[in-house]
C-alpha cells in the first residue's frame, strides 16, 4: 500500500500540517517516536500569522481562550525604561498580535483536532530508522514496540525537529553560526501583578552586565530568561539551588516554584535544500534560530501552511510536482530573513568582541536621548511574515499606493454580511473554500473567474460590506479592483481592472503551470 503523505514528527508543525492536509482532502499518516506530546513549556509565543492559520484549522479559539494575549514590549537599560513598542497598534483584526501559551497546550489542542479528522492516522511510538528513496516514492522503515515495518509514501515530510533523524538519513548538513553565550531559561510559577507585556532588560540591577527577559504564560507561569555569558558552567547553573537566588534577586522575593529549567546555547543555521527527492523538510528540522523574536515555532507553522496547499494540489493532479520548488524558494527566503533577524538580535544581546560591546553600549547610552539610537536597540525583533520574492507572484501592472503586494500575506479587516452580521475578512476567506480566492471590490456585475476560483465580493450592494472602510483603506481598493489570493492567503496578483485572461494567467503562474 502506498500512502500519499507521511509526516514524521507530531510537534506543532507536523500536527498543523496534518490537519491542513486533511482539511484539503488528503489522507495523512503522522508518526512520532514518543508515546505522547512533549514536556516542558519550550515555544511560548505564537504570532498573529500562526493564529490565523490555526483559526483556519479550527483550533485558534481554544488557543486564545487559554493563552495570554499581548502586544506591548518594553525595553529597559539598567533600571530605566528606554522605550516600548506596540505590535498591533490598530483595531479591526480577528487575531491578536501574539499569545503566550506553553507548547504542550498548543500540541494537546492540535492533537484533539487531529482525532476529529478520520483522514489522519496518528501513530505514537513509531520511529523512522531507515529511509530509501525510490523513483516515484520513498520507503521508510519504522521501529515500533511490536517490531519493524515498512511504509511507502509519495511524499515524506520531515517535521522531526532540530535533531532531525531524517536529515541525517538524506545526508544533508546543517551548518550555521553557534553563539558562545549561554542563557538560563526558567519557567516559574507565582502570583504576580506584572502586566502582560514582554519585558527585556540590558544590564538590569538584579543581573548586572547581562540581559534578562520576563514574559507571562497561562496558569501563573512566567518565562524568565537570564544571560549567563560564555564561561558559565551549564551543569551547575541548571541546579535549582543555584537558579533560585538569581530569580529571587530579580523578583525581590522567594515565593515561587520551578516548572522548567534549562541552560541553552543558541544556533542559527539552515539546510541548503529543503527538498531531498521525496523527502521535504519543515520547521526546526530545516532551519533553526535563536529564540529572540519568536521565530522558531512560528516560522515552522508558516512552512506547514506554505506546503499544505501545494502538496494537496500536486496530489490531486491540479499542479505539477514542480510547484514544490516554490516551497523551497519561499520558505528558504523566509528562513534567511529569520536567521538574519535573530542573528542581529543575538549579537546585540551578546556582543562578540570588546569593540562590538563598546558600540552596543554607545547605542544604549545614546538611546536615552536620541531617537535614532533607540531604533538600533535590539532586544529581539518579533516574528512577522516574510514578503516572498516568488516565481508564483504576478508583478503589479497597475499603480497601488498601499495594500499587500504580490508575495505578501493578506491583511484582515472587519466586514459585514448583507444582513449586517459582523464577519472578519480572514473568516470569509476561510469560508470561501480552500482554494484560490478573488477578492473583489464590487462594481456592478461580478468578474468572470475560472471554476476553481472562489469569489469574495465587497461593496455596498455586494454579499460583503465594508461599513468601516478599513478594507478599502488597507487594500487601496477602488470599485472594480481585485486581489487574487492563494490558498494560504498570500497575494498572487492584483488588478485595477481584472480581465478573465489576466486572472487565468496569474492562476497558472501561482499553480506552477507557467
Amino acid at each position, binding site marked *: 500500500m502506498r500512502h500519499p503523505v507521511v509526516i514524521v514528527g507530531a510537534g506543532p508543525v507536523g500536527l498543523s500540517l496534518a490537519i491542513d492536509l486533511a482539511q484539503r482532502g488528503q489522507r495523512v499518516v503522522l508518526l512520532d517516536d514518543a508515546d505522547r506530546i512533549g514536556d516542558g513549556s519550550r515555544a511560548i509565543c505564537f504570532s498573529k500569522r500562526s493564529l490565523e492559520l490555526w483559526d483556519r484549522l479550527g483550533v485558534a479559539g481554544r488557543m486564545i481562550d487559554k493563552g495570554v494575549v499581548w502586544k506591548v514590549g518594553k525595553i529597559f537599560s539598567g533600571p530605566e525604561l528606554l522605550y516600548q513598542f506596540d505590535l498591533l497598534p490598530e483595531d479591526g483584526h480577528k487575531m491578536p498580535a501574539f499569545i503566550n501559551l506553553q507548547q504542550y497546550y498548543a500540541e494537546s489542542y492540535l492533537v484533539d483536532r487531529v482525532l476529529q479528522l478520520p483522514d489522519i492516522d496518528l501513530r505514537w511510538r513509531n520511529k523512522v530508522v531507515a529511509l530509501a528513496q525510490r523513483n516515484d516514492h520513498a520507503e521508510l522503515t519504522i521501529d515500533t514496540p511490536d517490531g519493524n515495518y515498512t511504509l511507502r509514501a509519495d511524499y515524506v515530510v520531515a517535521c522531526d525537529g532540530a535533531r532531525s533523524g531524517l536529515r541525517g538519513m538524506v545526508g544533508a548538513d546543517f551548518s550555521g553560526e553557534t553563539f558562545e553565550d549561554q542563557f538560563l531559561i526558567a519557567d516559574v510559577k507565582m502570583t504576580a501583578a506584572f502586566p502582560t507585556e514582554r519585558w527585556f532588560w540590558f544590564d538590569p540591577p538584579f543581573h548586572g552586565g547581562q540581559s534578562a527577559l520576563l514574559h507571562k504564560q497561562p496558569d501563573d507561569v512566567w518565562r524568565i530568561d537570564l544571560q549567563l555569558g560564555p564561561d558559565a558552567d551549564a551543569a551547575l547553573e541548571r541546579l535549582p539551588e543555584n537558579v533560585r537566588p538569581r530569580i529571587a534577586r530579580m523578583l525581590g522575593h522567594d515565593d515561587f516554584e520551578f516548572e522548567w529549567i534549562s541552560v541553552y546555547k543558541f544556533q542559527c543555521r539552515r539546510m541548503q535544500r529543503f527538498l531531498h527527492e521525496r523527502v521535504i523538510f519543515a520547521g526546526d528540522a530545516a532551519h533553526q534560530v535563536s529564540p529572540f523574536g519568536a521565530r522558531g515555532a512560528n516560522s515552522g507553522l508558516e512552512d506547514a501552511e506554505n506546503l499544505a496547499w501545494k502538496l494537496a494540489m500536486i496530489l490531486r493532479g491540479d499542479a505539477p510536482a514542480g510547484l514544490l520548488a516554490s516551497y523551497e524558494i519561499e520558505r528558504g527566503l523566509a528562513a534567511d530573513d529569520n536567521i538574519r533577524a535573530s542573528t542581529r538580535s543575538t549579537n546585540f544581546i551578546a556582543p562578540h568582541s570588546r569593540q562590538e560591546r563598546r558600540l552596543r553600549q554607545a547605542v544604549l547610552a545614546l538611546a536615552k536621548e536620541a531617537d535614532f539610537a533607540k531604533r538600533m536597540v535590539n532586544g529581539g*525583533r518579533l516574528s512577522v511574515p516574510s514578503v516572498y520574492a516568488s516565481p508564483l507572484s504576478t508583478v503589479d501592472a497597475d499603480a497601488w499606493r498601499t495594500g499587500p503586494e504580490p508575495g505578501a500575506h493578506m491583511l484582515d479587516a472587519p466586514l459585514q454580511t448583507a444582513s449586517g452580521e459582523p464577519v472578519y475578512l480572514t473568516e470569509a476567506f476561510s469560508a470561501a473554500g480552500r482554494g484560490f480566492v478573488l477578492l473583489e471590490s464590487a462594481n456592478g456585475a461580478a468578474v468572470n473567474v475560472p471554476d476553481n476560483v472562489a469569489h469574495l465580493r465587497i461593496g455596498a450592494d455586494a454579499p460583503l460590506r465594508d461599513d468601516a472602510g478599513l478594507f478599502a483603506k488597507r487594500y487601496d481598493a477602488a470599485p472594480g479592483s481585485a486581489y487574487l489570493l492563494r490558498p494560504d492567503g498570500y497575494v498572487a496578483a492584483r488588478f485595477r481592472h481584472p480581465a478573465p485572461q489576466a486572472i487565468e494567467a496569474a492562476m497558472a503562474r501561482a499553480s506552477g503551470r507557467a
Partner: protein
Amino acid sequence: MLSTQSNFTDPDAAYRLIVEAHRGLSDEQSAALDAALVLLLANHIGDADVLHAAIELAKRRLSDSQTKGT
C-alpha cells in the same frame, strides 16, 4: 542642527554594517578604524556646528556607555 531622528530605513542593518567593519581587527586597529570613520563622516557633514553638537551629546552620554564588567 544635529539630526537625532532615525535616518536609516533599516537601522539594524546600518548598525550591523558598523559592527561587521570591525570584525577580525585587534582592539588597536578598531580604535584606528573608528577614528578614521569619525573624520570621514565629520568631513562629509561639513558643518562645525553640527560636529560640535554631536560631540556635546556623545560626551554627555559617555559615563553611561562605559563598558561594565568584561
